[in-house]
């Protein structure tokens, strides 16, 4: 009984760790897409940020410096996306794809040129990483059955960025639904002409949204290379930016449902590792690849309208032309 409980707790614990970059990226994508800018470049921004964090933390020995540069790098790429899509009304999918491919090539090129270790950054000391932190009383409460154990095993003992990710969901919800900026952000994604008529700058709002998106992707990237792992590894994002995009769609472009989708996809990932080679009752052994493909399959099924309907912001993907 207690054994099962620890297994369950360990799985939930792993779910949070795996879901953190997904949650941050999904919130990032939410800002961008709610403002009307399609963003498939979550993956590329996160990868570039992971590389920046890994490099800077290795050189300076400071995790915070790594995080800062990661955020700046990701914002810079986000502004390139904005420059192409908002200023020059370029195709948003093409621009996002360009950023993904650029990041995928450049991180390896620069990594090999700077560190000469096959595209990896040097391994970090623990002092240059965001390490798990013990919440107050976690040790004292761990003997209390069920609740105390839950507190010390699941709630406590994550890196600060995991808590930042969860907090980002609340902040995103508050900004998007409770502030004037959020109202304008949603309006500009639904009907930019109305926003323009009200005397607000569509470009400025969209640039702000894209920059916030960059910042959040930067935190996600830093989490990958200097918290979850101890160095940057080439292609370390491994499609997580796209899973976050899928989760955003799955959550119908809303913060809390998107977070739940991220947790569900993260849970599938955590379970996939545990289920490898273990036969299940009635169905036999489930192929790991099936579980890995499940987020994508589910998203396609949802988009096809077979389980509810996901309706995108109305003006998403359409460049705004002020002059008529």
């Amino acid at each position: 009984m207690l054994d099962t409980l620890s297994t369950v707790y360990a799985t939930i614990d792993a779910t949070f760790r795996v879901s953190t970059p997904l949650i941050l990226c999904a919130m990032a994508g939410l800002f961008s897409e709610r403002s009307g800018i399609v963003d498939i470049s979550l993956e590329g921004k996160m990868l570039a940020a992971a590389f920046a964090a890994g490099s800077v933390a290795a050189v300076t020995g400071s995790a915070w410096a790594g995080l800062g540069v990661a955020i700046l790098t990701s914002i810079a790429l986000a502004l390139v996306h904005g420059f192409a899509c908002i200023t020059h009304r370029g195709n948003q999918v093409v621009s996002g794809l360009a950023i993904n491919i650029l990041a995928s090539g450049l991180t390896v090129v620069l990594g090999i040129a700077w560190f000469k270790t096959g595209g990896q950054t040097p391994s970090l000391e623990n002092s240059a990483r965001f390490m798990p932190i013990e919440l107050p009383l976690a040790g004292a409460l761990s003997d209390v059955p069920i609740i105390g154990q839950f507190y010390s095993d699941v709630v406590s003992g994550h890196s600060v960025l995991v808590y930042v990710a969860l907090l980002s969901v609340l902040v995103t919800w508050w900004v998007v639904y409770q502030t004037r900026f959020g109202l304008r952000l949603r309006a500009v994604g639904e009907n930019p002409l109305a926003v323009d008529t009200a005397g607000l700058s569509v470009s400025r709002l969209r640039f702000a949204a894209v920059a916030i998106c960059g910042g959040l992707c930067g935190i996600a990237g830093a989490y990958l290379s200097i918290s979850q792992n101890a160095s940057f590894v080439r292609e370390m994002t491994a499609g997580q930016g796209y899973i976050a995009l899928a989760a955003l769609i799955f959550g119908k472009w809303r913060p809390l449902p998107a977070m739940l989708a991220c947790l569900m996809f993260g849970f599938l990932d955590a379970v996939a590792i545990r289920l490898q080679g273990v036969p299940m009752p009635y169905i036999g052994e489930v192929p790991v690849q099936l579980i890995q493909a499940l987020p994508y399959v589910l998203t396609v099924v949802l988009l096809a309208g077979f389980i509810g309907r996901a309706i995108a912001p109305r003006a998403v993907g359409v460049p705004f032309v002020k002059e008529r």
Partner: protein
Amino acid sequence: MNTSNIELPAWLEVVVIPILNIIMALFFAGLIMLAIGVNPFEAVRIMLNGAFGYQEGLGYTLYYTTNFIFTGLAVAVAFHASLFNIGGEGQAYIGGLGVGLVFLALDSVLPALLLIPIGIAAAAIFGAAWAFIPGWLQAYRGSHVVITTIMFNFIASALMVYLLVNVLIKPGQMSPESRYFEESSWLPQMHDAFAWFGLSITKTPLNLSFVLALICCVLVWIYIWRTRWGYELRTAGFSESAAVYAGIKPRRVVVSAMCISGALAGMVAVNEIMGVHHRLIMNFPAGYGFTGIAVALMGRNHPVGVIMASLLFGVLYQGGAELAFEIPKITREMVVAVQGLIILFSGALALMLRPWVVRLYLMVRPVREVSA
């Protein structure tokens, strides 16, 4: 000044602006090289020499070009229907599955004359089937092909890993790949084909699928600009409501355009599996599907442009390999970065320089145009 309504002569739109965009991309690529301490002009010299300087290099260049023609045409056909097929990667992969399944079942039974056409057909049909689903979902269920094709790339990859690890793997072998196919199923390589005519060239991976790629270019050109279906494709892509007025069924166009696009992408398997590897292996599409997007954007969705852009990427790939060999500081991923820059400048920022070109153009010949 809003310059988007001012018309430019065709040679400026189709030749000068695209070339300026590529120059911008290459300029930034040069800056990256300077940043890692490599002389960009030296790099260009090594690349051109590696790509064209000797027979083997040229063979490799054209072998890469073949893949890019297939995927570039695939993206271009979809673009004409204003569909964005990002799924070339997955469609090529599943095309390979088609070739693999057919050959594993039949290669000891049938002669080469039957096997090769069946293999090509299998690559096209499987590729088309993998693109049919996103196409159908967009046409009849309202989900966007951009997102669904991205998802289908990942699903294809997971499916192929499962099949290669668990089902198609050669028994008693560790690495996840199928057994070699019988030699009768191998697509003749170019040095064999030349030998039929008594000519001798260096052995390279270049094979007859290069000819197939050129044939596909002609067929695509005829399809898009010389048939009723191509007219329907372009009309529906230009304006769905106009197409409906003209009695065209846009949904059917969406599905057929995606199928043709997927079939073309699936042909990558003809070059890679039938022509070179002769067995089913992991990850053989190696990013060719994504490069197809850059190729189509640079080539302005026209077969001639696609051939030229494919050749440029063939040079970048083969020259890039040579560069990585000659200068240890540079790796093959440099080519990936350059590809990203080209997609950025030729695609997303395609119109960035246009206002400047318009201004220059108006300065050179302003008065007569306006007063006439």
